[in-house]
């Protein structure tokens, strides 16, 4: 077939977008819960919140570039999206391992997000390979 756009990548990007909204709200709610129940000094709360909001800011162009690259079969936006994914992965690993309090729910959400990123990255690489050749 002449269609090079990857359907699994499209589905995954779409699902990722919806899941990310849920993930952001849940993580923010849990940080608020932790700050009320546990002892959470301000100088430890600020970096955790900053990482969460930075990840949200990165996610929007990342998903947009992913959609655009896949649908227009262009490898440049897809490559850029892959680069942003690396940044998101780093931030996600921070929230999984180096947050002040890592709850069990945090572990589940972040692990799920990390696996989605990993799968996405694999699919993007194959799509770029398909577009280039």
């Amino acid at each position: 077939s002449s269609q090079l756009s990857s359907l699994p990548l499209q589905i995954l990007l779409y699902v990722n977008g919806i899941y990310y909204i849920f993930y952001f709200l849940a993580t923010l709610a849990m940080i608020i819960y932790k700050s009320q129940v546990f002892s959470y000094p301000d100088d430890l709360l600020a970096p955790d919140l900053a990482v969460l909001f930075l990840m949200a800011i990165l996610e929007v162009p990342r998903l947009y570039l992913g959609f655009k690259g896949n649908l227009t079969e262009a490898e440049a936006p897809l490559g850029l999206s892959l680069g942003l994914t690396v940044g998101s992965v780093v931030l996600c690993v921070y929230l999984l391992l180096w947050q002040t309090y890592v709850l069990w729910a945090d572990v589940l959400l972040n692990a799920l997000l990390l696996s989605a990123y990993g799968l996405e990255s694999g699919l993007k690489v194959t799509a770029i390979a398909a577009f280039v050749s």
Partner: protein
Amino acid sequence: PADIRDATQARVRSPPAPVTDVARLCVCDLLVAQCDVNCCCDPDCSPEDFSLFTSCSVPVVTGDSQLCSQKAAVYSLDVEANPPERIFKLIDQVNPSIFCIHATNYKQALYLKSPEIPTPENFDQLLDKFGGATFSAEPDSWNLDRDAQNPPDANETSRYEYGVPVQTEDAFLRLPSPVVSSWCSDANPAGFLVNQATKCIRSVSVEKCDSIQALSMLFYINSSILAVPKSSQMVNITVQSIVVQSLNGMRTLLSSSDVLRLPMVLDELCINAVLGVNYHITHTDTGEIIEAAAAFVLGAISKETLSIEQSFEISFTQENTQPVPLSGNPGYVVGLPVRAGFQPQGYPFPAAFLSNKHSQLTILHSTSTQDCLAAQGARAPVLFGYNMISGCKLRITAAMKCQPLAQTLLDVLKGQSFPEYVASFGNSQAQDVLDWVPITQLHISEQNEMVSHTLQSSCQIPVSLGIEVKWTKYGSLVNPQARIVNVTATITTTTLKQLPSGRERIIPITSSVVFTDISSPAEPSYKAWPTIDIKLPFDFFYPFV
């Protein structure tokens, strides 16, 4: 020197490291090197001691239960075995909640903070922080912010408020008063709108008569009063009147009060010494002082006098008003006189009421002689909230005529000018006719058993006056004001039987005032339930309707 510092270093020990191993933690191990009873985790206990225990007072020792998985030491007694033995198990306790703490990168999160050990270096700082009666848990930066906001704005206090000290050029308007003992202290400032009267003793001597500042008029009118706090507008204190008191106590009012009379020694007497000052301050309704006047009482001090009593008074009047003493603002204050008045001619068209000191609600004042006819005129004002009863004894002889006696007794009970209206609020103005409550007058006659005989001697004399004042709480729940609703004056009369000549009878005459609280209990009022106002758009069901 260095050796002392080394010695102090050696003495300062760091606090003991916290024990975090649950197998070694034992909260019931209180006795050192001895076995605590029923304490299964006590390392000092031998298996023979364990066999004597009945139960374990501490069954489980765990860390923070919010962790997802943590070690727990479980102690129990196996009573089946013979002899009973202690079982110690180290297990992993799992918290099933999804919000359990899986890991934490903040080491101090789960432990209490170790306190700072005082050393010679940080002792002063610790004393500052914790040395007082209270200390706050907030960090120090909080206090600094509050101090920075503290210096008051110069534009804010542009008027005097109740209780604020009246400021003068140099300091405050002084009203010398006794502080701990009866000796005068000059450091008492006069508060705005606080009417005060004080008396205190000052030590004097004739030789130092002109050098004691507090005896000279100049001391009290020297510095002018600031019209508003922190302003440059001054109000001079004028001399309103000077009264000269002679050594035997006789007072004369001087005709001219312009001349300042300073104390001086004359014939071994110190004359023109200040014995009393009465300040009258006039202010506007916006808290600005516009006039100040002082009335002096000057006297003479003889050589033998070592101390004199000085009396000071200050009163505040609003400009353009008559100083009618208020009994509360607006509700009556317990202990202040009930204000009463008359309605002038012109009824039924209500005009303003006349209310002055002479038309107070008064009650008969018991005297030491207790004779009603002898001590006429002694009356006491009715004070709000104070139930009073007073009386006297009436000696009736055969020669007394009924009608004049009844009239005299009515005068004794009610006084010369019994008012017709009572002010509903403590600050009711004379021109607000609706704020005044009429006094209901009732006449009750005491019935005797022999009813038929009353027709013959129909002479009724009043024997008791009972004033019942019904008041209610008015206004808000947190600051209720007392308001008089109803005043009833009941005169009880009894028949006076004719006495055989030569005999006399003593009848007690009483008058009483009772204050009754008829306030209804406060009803809570709730806000209306919020209503949900949903209106669907007109074409909501478009395809179907």
